[in-house]
């Protein structure tokens, strides 16, 4: 009874993956016929391409930057939401919106908020005297390299934060109530309870949230595609979006496939760590 599902998944995941490897060692283009094995040629040319190296670098900045923000933000939010209070349901609904709305839809909302002319953020900023912003030349959030990178990181953080928070909330609710209570009776204060009980006990689940977060970020192209198309001048181009522009829009299937294969090492590492986490939780 298990086989039909397994065969379907293998056919639509396993087979294309094998094809991606086959393509990466060929010179196949859209419309070309026949198969020519070219060895490592694609990988060589990719590793010599400044655009690819920049995309690889950007992918790491994008992933590390957003994961730090997500971890800190979601830990804070989960700890704040742990206790029941009036209106918790409403807060949960509002908080979940970024994760639940289709990514492309959320991102296009941000594109309006960060618009070059009508950005509401700029409208506020130029009216705050301490920033000394030029009213006629406000920050171009998606038009300047550093700001554009910061913008895609923040938008991606905005999207992943709810996911990480609900996972941490589930982790918090699994901590037996007796432990913090006992600590309190023994005289532990707020900070001590936080750093010696709550956060250490959250670590395993924080680990799971982080591993999923890394996969969802390192392999995501939607936020970048919608907000900047990789621009300005490829300064926010990430590995998956570069694979899309090269392989799908550019029609260079072999090079696109080779670029996308650079995501595999990260995925393998995450898979390994996840299995280790799962095994450990069964032992304890």
């Amino acid at each position: 009874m298990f086989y039909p599902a397994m065969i379907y998944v293998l056919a639509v995941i396993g087979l294309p993956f094998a094809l991606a490897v086959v393509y990466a060692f060929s010179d196949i283009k859209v419309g070309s016929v026949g198969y020519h094995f070219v060895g490592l040629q694609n990988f060589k040319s990719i590793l010599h391409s400044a655009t690819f190296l920049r995309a690889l670098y950007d992918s790491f900045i994008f992933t590390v930057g957003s994961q730090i923000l997500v971890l800190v933000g979601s830990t804070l939010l989960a700890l704040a939401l742990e206790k029941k209070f009036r209106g918790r349901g409403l807060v949960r609904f509002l908080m979940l919106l970024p994760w639940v709305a289709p990514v492309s839809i959320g991102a296009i909302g941000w594109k309006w908020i960060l618009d070059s002319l009508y950005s509401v953020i700029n409208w506020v900023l130029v009216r705050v005297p301490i920033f000394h912003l030029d009213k006629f030349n406000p920050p171009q959030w998606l038009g300047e390299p550093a700001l554009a990178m910061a913008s895609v990181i923040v938008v991606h953080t905005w999207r992943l934060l709810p996911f990480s928070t609900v996972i941490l909330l589930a982790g918090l609710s699994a901590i037996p109530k007796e432990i913090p209570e006992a600590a309190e009776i023994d005289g532990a204060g707020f900070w001590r309870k936080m750093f010696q009980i709550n956060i250490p006990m959250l670590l395993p689940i924080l680990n799971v949230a982080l591993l999923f977060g890394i996969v969802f970020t390192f392999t995501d192209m939607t936020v970048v595609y919608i907000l900047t198309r990789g621009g300005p001048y490829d300064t926010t181009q990430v590995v998956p979006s570069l694979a899309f522009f090269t392989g799908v829009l550019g029609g260079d299937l072999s090079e696109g496939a080779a670029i996308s294969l650079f995501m595999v090492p990260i995925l393998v590492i995450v898979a390994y760590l996840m299995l280790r986490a799962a095994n450990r939780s069964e032992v304890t």
Partner: protein
Amino acid sequence: MARGRVRELLVEGGRWAVVVSFSVALAFPFYWMLITTFKQDADLYNTANNPFIFNLKPTLVHLQVLFRDTMYLRWAGNTALVGALVVLITLVLSLPAAYALARLTGKWGERMGIAMFLTYLVPPTLLFIPLSRVVALLGLQDTIWSLVFVYPSFTIPFSTWLLMGFFKSIPRELEDAAMVDGLTRFGAFVRLVVPISISGILTVVIFTFTLVTQEFVYALTFIAPERNQMVGVGVPTFLIRGDVYFWGELMAACLITSLPIALLYNLFLDRFIAGFTVGAIK
């Protein structure tokens, strides 16, 4: 005691500050969609106006344009159709698979379950190039059938994993008793296990459907014609003409698409979490 009291107030104050500021930041873009939807163009595109309030009278014109002059409804229909078909395929394949995994004891069942779980980690951006070729070979390019074919590859693993947890909680003795009474294993599964698991099945239906609405990369890669788009691609692609963004219509479409999904999702959140927490929470 006074010091303890002050500290308690500080902690409560901090808690409220965090909850309020995060809620505002997370929900703000949706509030912005709402206010933009009902603003006149003359109000939207005037940098002198305070953007937080209605400087001119609210209008329904963006909604009218969205429903009458764009293909939004067609995209919504496509999405609903693909969603329904993918739900069907997912249920047919993952119900028996999950049952088999839940009842298979020993190393093999466990390994298969983990293999299913690991396929969550394979991203569309790794497979879209070869899959676009496969889809073209099958003659499915530019049709929604390409998505009906590909989407179950990520909905089946998630659903199987969720349902497996569900089936494991059903005592084995129940089926044994039914089989003693003359039902086959398959009969026991269909007449006994499936009816008890209806809430689990409903969960899978909702999540499969939301996963379909959220997907972007495959839909963008496989389908070019405007009338065959899914909502997630049609809205950010075809409500823009060249460099001109029709923000009123765009934000209206974003709002209308997001809210129903969000409402459905909220009802089943706890089950969704169970699908992601591996074994880290018992």
